[in-house]
């Protein structure tokens, strides 16, 4: 039973694999499916770069085994722009200098996608609190927070997609 049959829906597409139980969800996404948008920084749940949506809620994919996600729906950063067009949040990151090296960006985008879905009008404090689980080592938080608030405003105004 070290190997298990696992079926996971990722960005709307169902994938069936027989995987080792110890394979993390992050490694499943990157190595089995080739979805390398999900980044691995620390591999012990501190940096947040590997954050994905699991049945719609943010989770660290390095702290889960793929077998635990059997039957679940995952959204990765690739799933935020299914048609190749940037989401409102992604465009706001570009417009507001919300990324430098880009390593933390997938996790930031996923966490903020969840926040903005739950809270259409977050305060700066709400955004900063949501981002405590995502580290940026370029010290780019000011731009990231600005991008999140900008995306929220655009979505409320209906000027975004």
């Amino acid at each position, binding site marked *: 039973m070290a190997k298990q049959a696992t079926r996971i829906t990722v960005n709307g597409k169902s994938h069936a694999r027989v995987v080792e139980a110890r394979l993390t969800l992050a490694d499943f996404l990157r190595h089995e499916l080739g979805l390398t948008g999900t980044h691995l920084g620390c591999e012990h749940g501190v940096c*947040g770069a590997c954050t994905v949506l699991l049945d719609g809620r943010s*989770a660290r994919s390095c702290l889960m085994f793929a077998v635990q996600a059997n039957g679940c729906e995952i959204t990765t950063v690739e799933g935020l722009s299914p048609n190749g067009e940037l989401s409102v949040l992604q465009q706001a990151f570009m417009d507001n200098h919300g990324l430098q090296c880009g390593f933390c960006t997938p996790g930031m985008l996923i*966490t903020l996608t969840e926040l903005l879905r739950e809270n259409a009008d977050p305060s700066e404090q709400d955004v900063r609190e*949501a981002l*405590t689980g995502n580290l940026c080592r370029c010290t780019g938080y000011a731009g990231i927070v600005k991008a999140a608030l900008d995306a929220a405003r655009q979505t409320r105004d209906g000027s975004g997609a």
Partner: protein
Amino acid sequence: MKPAPFDYHAPRQLKDAAELLASLPNARILAGGQSLVPMMNFRYVIADHLIDLGHVEDLRGIAVIDGHLRMGAMMRQHELESSPEVARHCPLLAEALRHVGHRQTRNRGTIGGSLAHADPAAELPAVCLASDAVLHLASVRGLRAVAFRDFPVGYMATALAPDEMIAAVELPIWRLGHGHGFHEFARRHGDFALAGAAALLDIGAGGVVRRAALALFGVAERPVRVDAAEAALLGKAIDRAAIRSAAAAAWLIEPISDIHAGGDYRRHLAQVLSARALGDAARRAGVEI
């Protein structure tokens, strides 16, 4: 940074989970995995078998029963954080949950997992200690109830037998209108607290304290109740001076020193945070302070 190989088991019944835990060698329970999996990735923990409780329905649910709020051990921290029952009956728990890890870890982390992990700096054990919680532990021998006061027995060590798991947590509900306070000091929101305090106050006519509870965490090898502070408050009219002198009892603790903070600093924090938590509790119980 990859865990050692293990066999994975995903029982659907509590009875099956208990049988697996009793029969498999070197087996570990997987609840939310937000503490266990990092330890496995570091290979601090090498298990031959992992028993995932994520599909055991018996371990879920929240209900008010006989003056207690009963929560299944596998309730996710975010579920409790957004639960109207928790907000209404155990607001101390609701407030403490906002300090537990980060939103991504609360989405996965469970109440039972946090209590069984028994990190001395964790918030939920302190809430359980302050609230006189009762834990229901399950094994092939059935269920047994343990007062939370007797549950942590040392540094990250609990009263759980090797074949037992937490099935449910019961928090006695305090009278409606009681006050609560929760303060911790961490370098960054969501980090482990250097010290923290959880307080409950029931205040009657004339501002007289009818019931008081104060628990500290992050200061010793396990959370501690400050009995002397509670005794100092009981039966007295609450005011700033009463809170100050009660919080002074936090000086009596013997805090740990480590790379994060020295014992003297933790003792100082314990006193300051106790006063703040008691002050919030008094204000929320309707006393102007």
